[in-house]
């Protein structure tokens, strides 16, 4: 199987994110970059399939800017075979990213049997690329996948829907599958893996190489700003058990009469 895994490099969840001086995007200095957490489940799924089907290859694709820490190297250190980087600024919209991924996959000359993605990237939180990519490539796709079974070209996937309910899908490869937390437990890169990853092939393309132009941009962002800070709230001391009843009664009163939410 030719397995492709789409990864994105995003600011760490604990990183402070602030608007840049002209509000056109965020301040990119002093951000710690990580592989998008949901993409780790996609990489792990690919590696588990490869472990079961040794003739499979795992190619990781990323669209974004070149940085010192590289999610693609991390994925290869985990065990992926090769990588494709489409170099672009970090604020592309979902449409351009999906089109660039499609172009990058086509450049590889391999026909994908399975394309795995994280269910969403935690930077712009759009949840669009897997579905858009499947439209552009005319493949079926399932999002929010928490269960994956494969028999030959038959896939049985479990998708999480509202309230923790599950939809069970059957489909055939080739397909696009967007992975959610709970699907598996991503492995850590081993030291030998990290050493090996340095020698694994990484193909690099420009956006123009993969057919993406300025005219492809669909979503325009401006005026990045911090959300308004709330005025400080009221704090009540109830460590002493005798104070609990009084405090609770006061807070409930405030919720009803001041905040008017109950």
């Amino acid at each position, binding site marked *: 199987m030719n397995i492709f895994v789409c990864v994105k490099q995003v600011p760490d969840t604990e990183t402070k994110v602030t608007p840049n001086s002209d509000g056109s995007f965020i301040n990119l200095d002093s951000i710690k970059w990580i592989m998008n957490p949901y993409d780790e489940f996609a990489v792990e799924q690919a590696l588990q399939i490869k472990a079961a089907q040794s003739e499979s290859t795992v190619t990781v694709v990323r669209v974004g800017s070149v940085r010192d820490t590289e999610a693609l190297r991390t994925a290869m250190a985990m065990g992926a075979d090769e990588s494709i980087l489409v170099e672009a600024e970090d604020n592309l919209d979902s449409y351009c990213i999906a089109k660039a991924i499609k172009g990058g996959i086509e450049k590889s000359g391999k026909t994908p049997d399975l394309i795995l993605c994280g269910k969403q990237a935690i930077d712009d939180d759009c949840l*669009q690329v897997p579905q858009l990519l499947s439209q552009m490539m005319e493949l079926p796709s399932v999002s929010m996948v928490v269960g994956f079974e494969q028999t030959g070209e038959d896939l049985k996937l479990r998708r999480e829907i509202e*309230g923790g309910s599950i939809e069970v899908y059957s489909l055939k490869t080739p397909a696009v599958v967007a992975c959610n937390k709970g699907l598996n437990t991503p492995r850590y890169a081993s030291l030998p893996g990290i050493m090996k990853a340095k020698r694994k092939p990484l193909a690099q393309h420009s956006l123009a190489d993969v057919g993406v132009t300025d005219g492809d941009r*669909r979503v325009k962002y401006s005026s990045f700003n911090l959300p308004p800070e709330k005025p400080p709230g009221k*704090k009540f001391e109830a460590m002493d058990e005798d104070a609990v009843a009084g405090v609770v009664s006061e807070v409930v009163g405030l919720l009803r009469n001041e905040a008017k939410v109950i």
Partner: protein
Amino acid sequence: MAKILVFAEHNSGTVKGVTFEILGKLSSHTLEVVAFDGLSDDGVAELGKHGATTIHKIKGEGLDTYSPEGYANALKEVISSGSYDYVFAGSTSLGKDLFPRVAGMFDAGMISEVVEINFDGETFKGTRPLFAGKVLATVELDGPKPHFVTVRPNSIGMPDSAAGGSANVVDVTGNAGSIRAVVNEIIKGASEKLDLTEASIIVSGGRAMKNSDNFKILHEMADVLGATVGASRAAVDSGYADHSMQVGQTGKTVAPTLYIACGISGAIQHLAGMRTSKVIVAINTDPDAPIFQKADYGIVGDLFKVVPVLTEELKKLMN
């Protein structure tokens, strides 16, 4: 005035609240609604009152239940027939899955999960959070029309009044087309409650809950309030709660009117997922916990002492 189609998602006939939030906000435009069959009479009446002039009701083979391809194919036909400027939908579990597909069919742009809707004449100009709400940005669409926008439930608020008329219902025979990813079965989750992303009240537990059994006291309070129970990443990673309950940057981003955080210290990634809640109550033993900086009402105390008393007090009030 733009011509706008709003997708009305319904749950066994009951139209989801976010639909009315959208309609209320867009009332100065020409509004049509599209829905799959099964809308209740009340639902039809309410949609009319909220400004829908026409309701396109899709019925067809293979469209009784959701499948991404079936719904997308059928919607494509209705959208193509109307030369709409915009298509709006709620950013629900279904909306998030479906609308990028439909936008892709039109080669059109889509903005996910806006929290503010503004128009400059006929041009949509919204606001959406990025980096899980750590920043906000203004967002506009370009390229071929129609343009697609999804809206975060509870972020706009219900309109104060609904002074529209009654909508003209048009029955449409939908074509599900060829469905390659087939939904064979739906396994019901433990919770019959509203999903976290749509709940108007959320009671959430953190690492201080100590184990999954202790979540029982949060469920008891939630039952009194008609709330949905959530959890922090620490609680989920410790195995106290299912990932479907996780609130935060690597879980669900929520915007309820009331968020009650029990034993949650308030890591950045959790705050990012719930900071747009209208009113936040925090219960924590650590007076310096970051959650208190975001809380409208903070109770420094042991959640195991405070929560049962709070539940009783709320019970009295609700009766």
